[in-house]
């Protein structure tokens, strides 16, 4: 009965080429670990990662100052034990409240210059902070709460450990949203998680995504739920020449899985579907040679009896990066025909058979896009449209209500709250994110 994912030992080792997550306290950063001694910037610190290769994910590294601490350049060293400031610094006295504390800016006896020297000389953060406390007039009068708050603040400033984690959908979505919500259309994790469930993504079936603003996050989410070594496929449409795939690449998907995400330009794919050729130019058309790789693909789509074999030569302006990124996956047989031609054909074949779900996360007004793409969805199947403000979805809602080809239309928004859970100090976080975006969902009817 017990089966489950068999994970190879090597999956848990940090490898060159992996996307990795660097965690320093609550701060997380995504990084492509391209070469052994690549350097990352965390806050104002510059950290050389030499030595992490081959270590296990979840390992903790101590930051070692390269020369003096002023330069803020560090190397890293594998370590077993993270030192917790509170465990190191023993606090002898606490006041019962802060009534006698007047904040006159004079409570610290050390001068700024002295503190700077201390930072450069001291080996450990706890040493610095211990000195600061010893030289404070008010620290021992502060309440235990205030003292802890102070230590937390200082710990944040002087904390000198990193952890390297393996990216997954959760960490990638959090990092991208935190870094710049606008870059992922304000798509917060609660809303993202609901997109996946609302359209019933699982290991089987063919799923359609139109995404023009999430930097690959939605494609990553859907492909992740489709899974490794399964039959499910994702047709990922995008405007422009190149799909955004930052998040998709950061997932470190195996090739087999990544191949089942067929990224196509929406115009080319639809032109291929409707017109049997994926460029608008009528020049330079030639027969596609039936190579092994595209024949293989065609077999995946059963009952393909369409004579859509004509594809055009690559337009010279078409993005190199996409091709580059996926070069290894593409047909090596015929270097003259870029992979995207085959992708368009492949996508058109899947569209022909209709798909099992539709997700739209766009920057454009969703109405035209939905009305066009809903035709490719099988009756009874779910769809969801994400937009970062509600008004365009309100409009679309009314437009769809007056038609009879969708059911169970629902416009929702979310509200997510995080909590601080600490003894005697449990409360919701004082800052919350108010912008979750909106989802319009429903089912396609026959």
């Amino acid at each position, binding site marked *: 009965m*017990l*089966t489950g994912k068999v994970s190879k030992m090597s999956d848990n080792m940090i490898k060159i080429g992996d996307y990795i997550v660097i965690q320093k306290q609550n701060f997380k950063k995504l990084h492509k670990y391209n070469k052994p001694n690549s350097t990352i910037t965390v806050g104002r610190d510059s950290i050389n990662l030499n030595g992490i290769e081959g270590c296990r994910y979840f390992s903790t590294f101590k930051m070692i100052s390269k020369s003096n601490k002023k330069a803020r350049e560090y190397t890293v060293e594998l370590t077993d034990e993270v030192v917790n400031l509170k465990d190191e610094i023993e606090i002898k006295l606490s006041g019962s409240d802060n009534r006698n504390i007047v904040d006159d800016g004079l409570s610290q006896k050390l001068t700024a210059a002295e503190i700077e020297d201390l930072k450069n000389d001291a080996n450990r953060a706890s040493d610095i902070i211990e000195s600061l406390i010893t030289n404070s007039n008010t620290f021992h009068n502060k309440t235990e709460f205030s003292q802890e708050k102070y230590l937390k603040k200082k710990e944040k400033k002087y904390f000198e450990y990193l952890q390297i984690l393996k990216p997954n959908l959760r960490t990638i979505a959090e990092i991208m949203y935190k870094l710049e919500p606008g870059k992922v259309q304000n798509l917060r994790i609660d809303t993202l998680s609901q997109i996946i469930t609302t359209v*019933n993504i699982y290991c089987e079936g063919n799923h359609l995504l139109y995404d023009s603003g999430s930097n690959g996050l939605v494609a990553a989410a859907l492909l992740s739920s489709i*899974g490794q070594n399964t039959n499910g496929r994702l047709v990922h449409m995008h405007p422009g020449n190149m799909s955004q795939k930052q998040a998709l690449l950061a997932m470190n998907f195996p090739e087999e899985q990544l191949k089942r995400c067929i990224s196509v330009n929406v115009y080319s794919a639809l032109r291929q579907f409707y017109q049997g050729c994926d460029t608008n130019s009528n020049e330079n058309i030639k027969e596609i040679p039936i190579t092994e790789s595209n024949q293989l693909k065609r077999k995946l789509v059963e009952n393909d009896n369409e004579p859509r074999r004509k594809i055009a030569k690559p337009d010279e302006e078409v993005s190199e990066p996409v091709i580059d990124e996926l070069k290894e996956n593409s047909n090596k047989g015929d270097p003259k025909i870029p992979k995207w031609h085959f992708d368009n054909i492949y996508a058109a074949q899947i569209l022909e058979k209709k798909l099992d779900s539709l997700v739209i996360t766009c920057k454009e007004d969703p109405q035209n896009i939905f009305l066009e793409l809903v035709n490719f969805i099988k009756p009874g199947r779910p769809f969801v449209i994400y937009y970062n403000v509600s008004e365009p979805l309100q409009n679309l809602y009314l437009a769809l209500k007056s038609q009879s080809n969708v059911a169970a239309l629902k*416009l929702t928004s979310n509200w997510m709250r995080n909590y601080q859970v600490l003894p005697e100090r449990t409360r919701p976080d004082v800052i919350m994110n108010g912008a979750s975006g909106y989802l319009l969902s429903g089912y396609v*009817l026959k």
Partner: protein
Amino acid sequence: MSFRNYKDKVDEGDTVILYLSNNLYAIDVKTEVKNKKGETIENVFQTPFGALKVRNLIGIQYGSRIELSKGWGHILQPTPEMWSLTLPHRTQIIYTPDISMILFQLDLVPGCVVIEAGTGSGSLTHALIRRVRPEGHVYTFDFHEHRSKIAREEFEAHDVADFVTAQHRDIIRDGFSEELNGKADAVFLDLPSPWLGISHAVKAIKEQGGRFCSFSPCIEQVQRTCLVLQENGFQDINTMEILQRELKVTKRTIPVRDLSFLKHKSSESPVEEKPSGDTSYVVAARPVSTPGHTGFLTVATLPPAFARSKAKKTKTEDSEDTDTSNVTHGDR
């Protein structure tokens, strides 16, 4: 059988969803049923819009419109989300907004092994099964024997029993079974005293680490759970709440009241002192009554064995908070 994969047409034995004027009904497609006297009779499903002969559903395409004497509806293939809205409640259940976040926070993908306690009405279980299939597995436990039995029958009927093992077991008292030690990628607890299940979760999670999530309606449960998670070497402990709100979209026409004409003496015929016209807006109204709280989700990471910190006891003055062995909690 319609819970397993997408299909085009309704077969006998399927469970289908009848969507009728904003309501969902789950119907088992059986042509005949037994009546109270034990006699076999034709299966007729009564709807507010008239009776539906279930036999007539067989062979129609999912997404089709079906005619009823007083209106019409549509037949949809059930998803775990629709099932959550139609299943027979044997306990309070977890709904899609929380389910979505639970799946997300547990890092579940096809192939994962996940443990759930308790099974309850099986709302979350269906979503877990969908996410981890085809190679993964769900182990779900409930201390209520009858509930566990019904859940098993349901999984059989829904053709997903391959992917799930539903057992009657008091996991607080007895732990997860030995054979699960070190086998789980993730553990989910929806129990009155989740903190008492954490040590069992640690045993069950793989050596390479895994995720934990607990769903609790009350903050006291969360407080204890967070403390015990910390003592057991979990990291990234987070507590959150998700509320989904539905917006009602309508075109609303509202009157316009012109007052400017009063600045001037009017002509002989008096101007009517009524709204002078209309304007309309597409409005999204927030509901007067909406879910205000379902539960707190507390999530955490158990690092791989090599990276787990030794279980630290919190300071002595906090110990009263964690000495909770004698607290009893009922069912919610």
